[in-house]
């Protein structure tokens, strides 16, 4: 094993490639949070009074709430008054065309391998770029408009489609849902908004790329996706941040609403800066993601590949309200060095004959701790509900931990709930087999780990899957050897 451990170590300890800082002039508000700061954010964004009030109400609730302590993660107390709640690259106004974007920001995305240029964007993916707190560009807007699809930053949506935003914002994740959701509701700065009209199948992947750049800030984006009757949309989310010794807070909220027979597929590749080998720095990723299958036969599918962040606290969930609606959760969570992840899902079965499927693959290396936490709740009226959960953990080395915490609550006797779980260690025999065929140790680790995650990787859209596969290999560099 010694050799294998050494390689996973080399693999895992390779430097974070995305850790650079972009030298743009940023406008930030001073650290601290009170009602004046919230009014300031709301004013800067030229928001209507109802939204300012909505934020303030969330803030008042947040002040009475306590940080959740039940997750298996440990970190020093966060001083919420030391964080700046708004950062934006200085620019007179939102660029009219892609050519107006600050060249430095453009270069940032090029370095990240995602050029902001429509013609070069991966085989027809429309992208919204969020740099620190604000959206800097959205591509392919025209083409989508022709189909009646709205894809823009949430700030624009507030301005241009207030009726939709007002109706759905907070309808799935209410402002008082939890500590971080309340904080987000009070201070969210930007994020993406999608509306797909009835019967429209969105012809391209919609994507948002989140980048934290400024120091001493938090990122609080808010995403709202509505798929109207019989529509379909696939949405991708990617994220990176510079390497900093301090911990930065990311507390996003994502709400999905699927009406009758609509389908939403939401994929994330989360690669926030994980901190260094000693566990210094890194992003605290405290995110609330929830989808409501509101209509009959609607479907929401979450796929996540989580490799970054110092701490991940995240449970993308489905509320299966419509009869025969379907919820899916496919997850790969990889932790290395001192990373901690407590992630999983909630499947709430309300409607009749609702179905859910959970596939979770946890990989722990270094001294990391990796927890799957999941809830399957079958309510009384959920006649004939079905759930299948499969939860596999892979350990690399002998200083990491994998934990599985499944909760199952069944109130309807006709329900069928299945839970399977396995835990295994990265096998020396498998690595030797690969190497004896000429595959170098690092590639062998990536190959075996990717095989372990295959069911989840297969759920990712093609362009993303290639990226995610490479990322798993890179994130494990140095963990064996």
């Amino acid at each position, binding site marked *: 094993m010694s*050799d294998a451990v050494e390689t996973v170590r080399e693999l895992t300890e390779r430097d974070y490639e995305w850790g650079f800082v972009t030298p743009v002039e940023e406008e930030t508000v001073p650290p601290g949070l009170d009602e004046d700061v919230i009014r300031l954010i709301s004013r800067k964004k030229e928001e209507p009074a109802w939204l300012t009030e909505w934020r303030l109400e969330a803030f008042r609730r947040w002040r009475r709430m306590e940080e959740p302590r039940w997750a298996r993660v440990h970190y020093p107390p966060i001083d919420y008054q030391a964080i700046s709640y708004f950062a934006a690259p200085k620019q007179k106004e939102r660029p009219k065309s892609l050519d107006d974007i600050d060249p430095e920001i453009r270069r940032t995305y090029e370095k990240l391998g995602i050029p902001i240029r429509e013609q070069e964007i991966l085989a027809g993916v429309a992208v919204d770029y969020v740099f620190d707190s604000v959206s800097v560009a959205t591509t392919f807007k025209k083409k989508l408009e022709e189909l009646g699809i709205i894809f823009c930053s949430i700030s624009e949506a507030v301005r241009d489609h207030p009726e939709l935003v007002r109706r759905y914002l907070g309808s799935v994740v209410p402002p008082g849902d939890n500590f971080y959701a309340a904080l987000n509701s009070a201070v969210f700065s930007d994020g993406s908004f999608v509306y797909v009209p009835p019967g429209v199948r969105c012809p391209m992947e919609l994507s948002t790329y989140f980048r934290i750049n400024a120091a001493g800030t938090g990122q609080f984006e808010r995403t709202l996706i509505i798929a109207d009757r019989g529509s379909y949309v696939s949405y991708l989310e990617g994220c990176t941040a510079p390497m900093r010794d301090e911990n930065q807070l990311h507390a996003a909220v994502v709400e999905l609403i699927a009406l009758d027979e609509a389908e939403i597929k939401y994929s994330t590749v989360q690669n926030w800066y994980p901190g260094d080998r000693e566990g210094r720095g890194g992003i605290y990723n405290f995110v609330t993601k929830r989808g409501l299958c509101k209509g009959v036969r609607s479907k929401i599918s979450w796929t996540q590949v989580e490799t970054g962040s110092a701490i991940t606290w995240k449970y993308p969930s489905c509320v299966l309200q419509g009869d025969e609606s379907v919820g899916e959760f496919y997850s790969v969570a990889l932790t290395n060095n001192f990373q901690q992840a407590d992630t999983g899902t909630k499947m709430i079965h309300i409607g009749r004959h609702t179905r859910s499927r959970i596939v979770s693959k946890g990989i722990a290396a270094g001294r990391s701790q990796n927890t799957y936490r999941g809830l399957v709740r079958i309510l009384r009226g959920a006649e004939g509900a079905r759930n299948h959960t499969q939860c596999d953990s892979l350990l690399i080395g002998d200083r990491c931990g994998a934990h599985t915490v499944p909760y199952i609550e069944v109130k309807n006797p006709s329900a069928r709930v299945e839970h399977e779980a396995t835990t295994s260690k990265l096998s020396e025999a*498998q690595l*030797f087999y*690969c190497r*004896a065929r*000429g595959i*170098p140790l690092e590639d062998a680790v990536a190959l075996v780990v990717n*095989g372990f*995650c295959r069911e989840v990787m297969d759920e990712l859209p093609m362009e993303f899957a290639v990226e995610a596969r490479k990322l798993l290999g890179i994130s494990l560099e140095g963990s064996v050897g």
Partner: protein
Amino acid sequence: MAMLEIENLHVTADGKEIVRGLDLAVPAGEVHAIMGPNGSGKSTLAYVLAGREDYEVTEGRVRFLGRDLLAMEPEERAAAGLFLAMQYPVEIPGVSNTYFLRQAVNALRKARGEPEMKPAEFMKRLREAARTVGIREELLRRDLNADFSGGEKKRNEILQLLVLEPAFAILDETDSGLDIDALKAVARAVNGLRGPERGFLVITHYQRLLEFIVPDRVHVMVEGRIVRSGGKELARELEERGYEPFLREAA
């Protein structure tokens, strides 16, 4: 100079000496067989040559094509042209047989400074090899060795041998658990690869395989040493007399 030269090799595992002063030389163009009873150290020898880490070489040296084999990583040995058809091939869930083999082909090419093999060329070669060893197309798409029968796993090792075309191949009890048809298919594949530049070391319990892959030399291994070497007729003699006389000699 022989392709593979083993001198006074001593190997321990878990504090127990398993190979105890073994000498062996296999020249290019020859097929050598090692026969011996269970526990004589045959498989240990195969693993040590391929670079498995669970063993400690306490003494001796091994030269492969003039290089110090024991100083090389397993993947370097593979790149140098060494191949081990394993007795117990491992399963790699989620990695298809075809994908794995293509990764291997291209890893070897990369190590040798050659360009990647074109997918079409690879598939052609793979299908030909599959026909030769009698592997169904469906098995090529399945996860590597997962839910393969014992015989299918062995045939699959030989499939890899055919596709990778190593300079030197070690077959570790490839015949065990094979029916006569599979045995013939394996022999056909190996015999097709025989040539003046290539060497083979065939490890087996039984003489049966050696009727189909006729060796140039046969070595008897008992308690970690070669106790007798001879021509192909030695295999037949062993089949008739068993290992008993050699065990007595060794004791």
